[in-house]
């Protein structure tokens, strides 16, 4: 068992303010008109810990929507790398377990065989403090996806927090995390009773889920039913092609690269920005588009998150955060699409044939 500490709520706030002297402290903040957004906090009191899920996950600090890559001299084509805006040793507080899982999923893309320079730097400079969920959120099914409601990761994060009413249990996930908690003045070591309380909270949290998805055999089933009518029907009746699902998805990694040249045509800035498989242009090539139908694009989203991701990276691309269905203007729910195929299979209407 890792060493854990207990911090009373007041001590927690003091600790945050101490950290602010040394780090850029980021956390969920309640904004005008109601949204809760991850941003730098000016005071510990800004932190809004009682939240379910933000629109964009903390991914945006490690893999920003727009990243400036290079400055290119148009005359001699010399390239200068633009360092990612210095995160200045940021600490992101209250990362939900599903979002932490999502970052570890992104790691598999950007820190795999070939490492992305920018992602590597921001990931290294950013510390993550996970806050376990004591209850399920409305659209969430992280429990089914093995991503919550309490942290399931072995590593890749720095600290894990559990809110226990009057105080927090804080457990160490990394050496750097240990360095953070050592700055807390009024910490005391957790006793075994504290871990029992945590287990109890976790059990209650798991029991609070109303949404589930059976994942056993799901990837194979989906891949054997690529032409299931649920895709066409949903695409026609409900999918607006707005790409909200992929914008808010914490594991989506696709990007586009764009060159912007100065008006005097001497310097080019090469940038990348998030792209979405739900956009019409995404699979366009000269003379055609391999996913010109909305049906094909919707199928790409569902089968990638719940099937082909497993073949690519050995994990699901869905962490069960529920954002895609929450922010879909017509409430398209990928678990319901998956369930329909599962039900059709059980009643003999879906296929289970070889797909090679």
């Amino acid at each position, binding site marked *: 068992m890792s060493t854990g500490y207990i911090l009373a709520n007041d001590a927690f706030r003091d600790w945050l303010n101490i950290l602010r002297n040394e780090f850029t402290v980021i956390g969920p903040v309640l904004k005008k008109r109601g949204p809760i957004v991850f941003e730098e906090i000016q005071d510990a009191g800004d932190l809004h810990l009682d939240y379910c899920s933000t629109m964009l996950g903390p991914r945006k600090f490690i893999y920003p929507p727009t990243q400036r890559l290079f400055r290119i001299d148009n005359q001699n084509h010399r390239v200068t790398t633009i360092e990612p805006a210095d995160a200045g040793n940021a600490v992101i507080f209250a990362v939900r377990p599903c979002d932490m899982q999502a970052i570890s999923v992104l790691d598999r893309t950007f820190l795999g065989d070939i490492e992305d320079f920018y992602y590597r730097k921001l990931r290294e400079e950013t510390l993550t403090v996970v806050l376990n969920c004591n209850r399920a959120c409305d659209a969430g099914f992280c429990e089914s996806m093995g991503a919550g409601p309490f942290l399931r990761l072995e590593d890749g994060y720095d600290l894990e927090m559990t809110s226990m009413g009057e105080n927090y249990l804080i457990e160490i996930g990394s050496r750097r995390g240990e360095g953070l908690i050592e700055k807390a003045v009024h910490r005391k070591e957790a006793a075994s009773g504290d871990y029992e309380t945590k287990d109890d909270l976790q059990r209650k949290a798991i029991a609070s889920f109303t949404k589930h998805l059976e994942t056993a055999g799901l990837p194979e089933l989906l891949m054997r039913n690529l032409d299931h009518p649920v895709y066409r029907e949903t695409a026609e009746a409900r999918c607006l092609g707005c790409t909200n699902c992929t*914008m808010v998805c914490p594991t989506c990694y696709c990007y586009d690269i764009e060159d912007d040249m100065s008006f005097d045509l001497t310097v080019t800035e090469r940038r990348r920005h998030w792209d979405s498989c739900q956009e019409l242009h995404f699979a366009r090539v000269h003379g055609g588009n391999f996913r010109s139908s*909305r049906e094909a694009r919707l199928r790409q989203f569902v089968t990638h998150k719940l099937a082909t991701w497993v073949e690519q990276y050995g994990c699901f691309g869905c962490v069960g955060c529920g954002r895609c269905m929450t922010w879909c*203007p017509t409430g398209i729910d990928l678990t319901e699409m998956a369930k329909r195929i599962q039900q059709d299979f059980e009643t003999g209407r879906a296929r289970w044939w070889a797909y090679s």
Partner: protein
Amino acid sequence: MGTGKRIGIFKYSSCAGCQFQLFYFQHYVLETIQAVDIVYCKMLQSGGEEDGPFDLALIEGAITEQWQADQLKRIRERSELLAPIGSCAVCGGVPAIKNTAHELDAQRRVYEDISVVHSLKAHPVDHYVRVDGYVRGCPPGVRDLAELVKSLLLNKTPRFLDYSVCVECKLEEAICVLVAYQEPCMGPVTNAGCGALCPSRGRACYGCWGPMKDANAKALADRFERMGLGREEIYRRFTEFGEPTVEWKPGQVKP
């Protein structure tokens, strides 16, 4: 002066706001003016070479009179590239609202003697001639205008924004007024470029950038109906910016 790229700017039935937007270009206005030769633009300068030839002709406004259509065809012949700028020229814009009424009724409400009026139904530029891209917006966005000018200078095919307003709205992390407040927001079917101006300022998008390509208007109209919006209200939403285009037509079911 400049690169010698010859630009002609023509105004048809519109508010002239697109041309002003070119001047609202602020940071870029000097660069642009010096990088190209504006050989025809009535609002900017007297004289000018109306008959081109042009490397790029920019067309502002909807076509509502026969002489405009005739001149437009001549411009097309004399232009290497031709692009409609702004919603009126791209999708009919506000002038096309009159297409939803009986033509003569609309005219009679304005003039006692309509014998001097020679107005056609309002159509976008591509109704009459082939176009080489669309600079969307009401007013058009700085990003797409800059892309257009630079692409011209580079001999490159411009890449205009072609996704929905929702993309920009999500990046703003604005609360979705459709999902959270059940407001009939046109964002999901409207082309991006404004920076999700309305939703991030507390109101539903009213579609001023016109249809996004491949918009699913029917599905959004159905969504509005499920929210309790009347058929007439839905019809108005889908006709404020754009005569029936393929993309929004399924939402324009007359009550």
